[in-house]
């Protein structure tokens, strides 16, 4: 919460909206970091099965596909949980 404390006016009063904007930005950052960490784990497991002396072309393309599919999978799961036909 560094940027919050450095931007808060003296006396500590800050509007709820400004506070929430800050909280949301912090959360978005944290979600993105966590998601990327998950992608690293999942795609490393799938695509770097036998680490060689450098990252091969087929490994790189596997990683791109893995990232795309994982994002797609998140959408499929989210839709199946929240769609109307439950």
């Amino acid at each position: 919460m560094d940027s919050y404390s450095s931007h808060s006016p003296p006396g500590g009063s800050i509007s709820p909206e400004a506070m929430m904007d800050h909280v949301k930005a912090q959360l978005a950052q944290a979600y993105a970091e966590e998601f990327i960490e998950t992608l690293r784990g999942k795609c490393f497991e799938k695509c770097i099965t036998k680490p060689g002396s450098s990252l091969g072309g087929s490994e790189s393309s596997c990683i791109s596909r893995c990232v795309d599919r994982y994002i797609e999978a998140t959408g499929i799961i989210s839709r199946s949980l929240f769609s109307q036909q439950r």
Partner: protein
Amino acid sequence: MDPNAAGNPELIQLLNEEKQRAMVNEAVAKLTSACWDKCITGTPGSKFSSGESSCLSNCALRYMDMSMLIMKRFQSMQ
């Protein structure tokens, strides 16, 4: 937290909404991870097969069914 903010009902309301959203996000992330491991057994292709996408969707729904059953089973032990 700032004591002025903590007593502000509007802020508390907004924070609770954000908390709900965070819990939903977390549940989706957890299910995606578990179902990815179950359903995507080969190397990821350029698109999901229909088997893979229906597995993902079934996996999420069955997880919810299971979680309900576990809850009932647990309550019956009390």
